[in-house]
């Protein structure tokens, strides 16, 4: 069994009276595709937000790659190697597709104000490398022909791809996708699946939230089910599919 990359221990989060997460503990292993499912409002996105530092959990915490993740420091999560996409796509709409991916390189590059003002050789070399890598990533997600278009003018499917490319630009160890297949047709979903499998075979661990049960069961090595903020089960798809509680809470519905 490969080592654990991300471990959540007793993570809790409430909004007023709503207990969005109750004592959620789960672990994601290096190199696997891990699915997180559950009915609407189960707390999946909240889990993402706690993990990536956008929310501060009210209890528990995360260990990532051997060291604790600090709450309330989203930019540090990215630096440590956690990248994410958003359920309601959040691109930099008035920047081009290429610039969006270039932004993703920010955390792995270092040119500062002086470098920019004096246009030092190092800065120019870094800038060229950023551009080069961004172009490669646009090719990787197959939207290279949209490089010069404003992100907001891309089709829905392309926007999802662009968001993945931007996340990949940060060189994540763990890529978290929040309902990447939402609103996609069968062909697009099949392409997405191929893309996700490709990313995994490049060595990136993937955590993804999805409502499409067929996609999740077909793609994931392991699946966790959340219901009313609590973890119901965490196991391989074959077991999860047969679990009575899951069928009641989610699959049966």
């Amino acid at each position, binding site marked *: 069994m490969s080592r654990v990359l991300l471990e959540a221990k007793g993570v809790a989060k409430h909004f007023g009276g709503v207990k969005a997460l109750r004592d959620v503990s789960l672990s994601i292993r290096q190199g696997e595709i891990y699915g997180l499912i559950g009915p609407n409002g189960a707390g999946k996105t909240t889990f993402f937000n706690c993990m990536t530092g*956008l929310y501060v959990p009210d209890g528990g915490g995360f260990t990532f790659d051997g060291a604790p993740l600090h709450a309330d420091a989203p930019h540090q*999560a*990215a630096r440590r190697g956690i990248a994410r996409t958003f359920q309601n796509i959040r691109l*930099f709409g008035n*920047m081009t597709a290429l610039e969006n991916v270039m*932004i993703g390189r*920010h955390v792995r*590059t270092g040119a500062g*104000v002086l470098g*920019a003002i004096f246009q030092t050789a190092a800065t120019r070399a870094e800038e060229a490398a950023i551009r080069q890598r961004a172009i490669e990533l646009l090719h990787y997600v197959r939207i290279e022909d949209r490089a010069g278009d404003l992100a907001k003018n891309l089709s829905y499917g392309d926007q999802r791809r662009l968001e993945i490319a931007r996340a990949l630009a940060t060189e994540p160890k763990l890529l978290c996708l929040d309902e990447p297949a939402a609103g996609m047709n069968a062909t697009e979903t099949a392409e997405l699946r191929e893309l996700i499998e490709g990313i995994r075979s490049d060595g990136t661990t993937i955590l993804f939230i999805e409502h499409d049960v067929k996609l999740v069961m077909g793609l994931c090595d392991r699946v966790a089910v959340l219901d009313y903020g609590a973890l119901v089960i965490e196991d391989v798809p074959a077991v999860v599919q047969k679990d009575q509680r899951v069928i009641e809470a989610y699959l049966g519905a």
Partner: protein
Amino acid sequence: MKNGRFFRSTAGVMAGAVLLLVLPFVAAMGGQAWVRILDFAILYVFLALGLNIVVGFAGLLDLGYIAFYAVGAYTWALLASPHFGLHLPIWVILPIGAGLACIAGVLLGSPTLKLRGDYLAIVTLGFGEIVRIFMNNLNAPINITNGPQGITLIDPVAFGSFKFSGTTEIFGLALTGPQKYYYLLIALCVLVVIINLRLQHSRIGRAWQAIREDEVAAKAVGINTRNLKLLAFAMGASFGGVAGGVFSAMQGFVSPESFSLIESIMVLAMVVLGGMGHIPGVILGAVLLSILPEALRYGVGPIQTALFGRLLVDPESLRMLVFGLALVLVMRFRPAGLWPSPERRRELEEAGQ
């Protein structure tokens, strides 16, 4: 084809440069007052480009920008005037002024950067007023700023024995004080334009734009939004400090009156009216808003007497009236500014549909 464009743009730059070089002599034909107006226009361009880093690039609405100008101005005034008997050289004062303004920028920035939009605007507005009131009241118990009377007899800019005040003869050409300051200010402006341009198209500039577009997404890709906003504040403030220093030296006199809220609003209006974040637009905005009121001031009176034989409307109030009307018209018909960047114009057009 490409070559042709290159030649045309080089020719354009050359023509522009020649125009800028002869401008103070053209203006001098109308009297030294016009050269002085020109000087202030360029100083405002400098100031507006500094504020552009904060407002245009990082998207932080700063209504207290003039406070940093004040810090720079008073630094110069205190370190180069009979008030304390200090007469330090420019390469000592200007960095100190810029540094102090920068510190003021960080001081203002660090507690307020969690605020956004209107809230940030209100706090910065308050900060600007606090600085002005400080300058007004720091004459007791120890007289530091000389209160509302201000500080007089401030040293002009000087490099060694070359002073920027008074007339000097260079290569048989008599240059007046305002004309010399003009060239100094143009040099400073060229510098700040280059810095603006290079920052805009850099890793830092991109990160600022990302923060402006979507702060949450920017955080999620690993941008340290707090530090980058502070950086914008600090840089904008430093430029404000430098501008303040030159202002102080040029005027020979500072008082808290010069740093009122209306000045902050003016500089912000220059940035917004011209075209936020778009450098040529900001320059246009600054030049128009600083020259137009002066032109009205000098133009309205004589025109009225010529037309009606006497003054019907006080030129001063008419000036503000026309000014306000112009602002309203621009915001109504060119909401992205007079000369917006192509992207920004597209943004607004699409939003309007």
